[in-house]
């Protein structure tokens, strides 16, 4: 009787174990077919990045941390500013406050996040492709054509959007992970994931709203709370950026 009851747990943990091993097989970059960017040919607006940093409690809850978030924002912004010249095209940073139609811009930022999450779930993870995405591997995603109506992005060809969310595993979470692993010695082990590091960077065509390039990963590297870490994170976020000098390798 008892064995049957715990079958539920075994199934759950098998699922968790498989789910995490599949992550490594996941794709991380998408490019709209035929999209190319000649260096020095376009103007790109970089929207103020959305940055959230906190820790992950033992039970897995996100605990927002104001200081870490401030620090990470500063680090990432500084690194982005430093990187701009290497990206091959003119890039202008747009702050989300104090611009006309900032409400709409904020909404587009969130919409981009939702679209990018869908890309991760339904395109980058081949086992989970939607029926319409199974046959053709074309990268066809969009935030809709109305982006061009926003005053602030007029005169730009593309918008670059960046979002990151980091939850650093607390000591309790790490201990739980070890205990879950050691549990297998006595009874059943439990797969516990510690920490969560989501990063997404995408380029959206202002005229059509199409997502022409996306780099997104649920397991990004680089500790954004530190200057060197932020450098690594920005490097990963902008890896293969269209038209940049390092996009070939």
């Amino acid at each position: 009787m008892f064995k049957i009851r715990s079958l539920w747990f075994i199934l759950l943990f098998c699922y968790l174990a498989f789910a995490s091993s599949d992550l490594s097989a996941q794709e991380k970059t998408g490019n709209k077919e035929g999209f190319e960017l000649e260096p020095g040919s376009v103007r790109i607006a970089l929207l103020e990045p959305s940055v959230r940093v906190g820790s992950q409690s033992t039970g897995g809850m996100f605990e927002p941390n104001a200081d870490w978030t401030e620090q990470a924002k500063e680090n990432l912004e500084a690194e982005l500013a430093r990187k701009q010249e290497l990206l091959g095209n003119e890039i202008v940073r747009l702050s989300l406050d104090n611009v006309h139609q900032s409400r709409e811009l904020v909404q587009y930022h969130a919409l981009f996040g939702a679209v990018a999450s869908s890309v991760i779930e339904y395109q980058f993870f081949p086992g989970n492709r939607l029926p319409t995405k199974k046959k053709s591997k074309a990268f066809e995603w969009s935030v809709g054509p109305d982006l061009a109506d926003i005053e602030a992005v007029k005169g730009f060809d593309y918008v670059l959007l960046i979002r990151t969310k980091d939850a650093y595993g607390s000591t309790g979470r790490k201990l739980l992970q070890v205990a879950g692993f050691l549990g297998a010695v006595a009874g059943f082990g439990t797969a516990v994931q510690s920490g969560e590091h989501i990063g997404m960077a995408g380029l959206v065509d202002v005229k059509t709203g199409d997502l022409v390039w996306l780099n997104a990963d649920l397991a990004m590297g680089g500790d954004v709370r530190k200057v060197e870490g932020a450098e690594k994170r920005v490097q990963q976020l902008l890896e293969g950026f269209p038209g940049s000098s390092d996009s070939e390798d």
Partner: protein
Amino acid sequence: MWLKRFSVVLAALVAAPTVAAEPETLPPYVPAYEPTTVDERGLWSQADELELLYKRSEHLIDDEELNAFVRRILCSTVGNDRCDGVRIYILNIPAFNASMMPNGAMAIWSGLLLRLRSEANLASVLAHEFAHFELRHSLQGFKNRRSTSDLLAWTVVLGNAAVVDTRNSQISLVGSIFRFNRDMERQGDLLALKYLRQSPYPSRASSQVWQYLMEEADARAAGRKIRRKDRYRAGFFDTHPTSLDRADYLLEKSMEYGDIGNAEQSAYFEAIRPWLPKLLADQVRLNDFGGTEYLLGNIAGVTGWIPELVLARAELFASRGKPRDLITATTLYLDAIDKGHETSEVLRGLGLSLVKSGRRKEGAEYLERYLAQNPDAPDAAIIRMYVPNGDE
């Protein structure tokens, strides 16, 4: 043996999280409070971001007079010093709700304004939300959810390792999160009552709010021909005590206080009257005949059948649109005109009701007048189809 000890410890921990005892006097007031701990500062920074979304929301009603009115009620209830720390956002959502963020941003839904009958009712809702802020319930709830989910995680991992079935403990842990939330709501209710007792308003108005909601729910259930439900005991997943429970303990406590005051019924409707047509139009669109009839009748109990209410009732009947409803609607539209309320909504509704009842010629006359008043109305093209020679 250690298994037994493990489950005893677990049982003790499961029972542990309860909200601190209800404060007997008003909590001490700290001007310009700033959060200091990592948790609270994190929550505030998150709330600051959310508040920006309120500010930029297309649902925000930024009418100065209405906002000043709601603010005046809050300040006269909790005191001018305390209300300084609060920003109020009135959101255009036709349902009963209000919420409070840890940083002092309060959201009031427009549907709430339609469901209250006096300044004192509004004061009790605002004081309840303020009590959440004053008692720092967001932080308490966050900490409770965190410690409980920590415990839940350990229960699962250790239970697996020891091959022990821990599902009962898991269920009680989950239940304790909701129970904790209900306790905080109750605490908010009772502190709000203390504010009301010190205010010019009678504290008994708090209990009324929940009575109104129950009556409306009954009317809605009757209109939809479904079973009505009154419960004293909250369910497992309920985040709030039941309306019946709240109406009951609030009445008991306010009778104990025995304070008196003017609930300011007429003043309340005078203040929200400019918004009444909009609030009523939104309500009529909810497709809740029974509930809306109840609301209209009760507002009329205070204000009398003012033209705005007559029009809303006409629209309610016209939207249900059974043959008999159209006769009622036509009568009510004509009543509204008699009361000097010949607005374009009345002309349009009256015209369409007549056309639908088969009196095309009379209907067309009113629709023509509607089009003359609003040649550029969004529905002008379709209305023109009912008017002879109107499609020139």
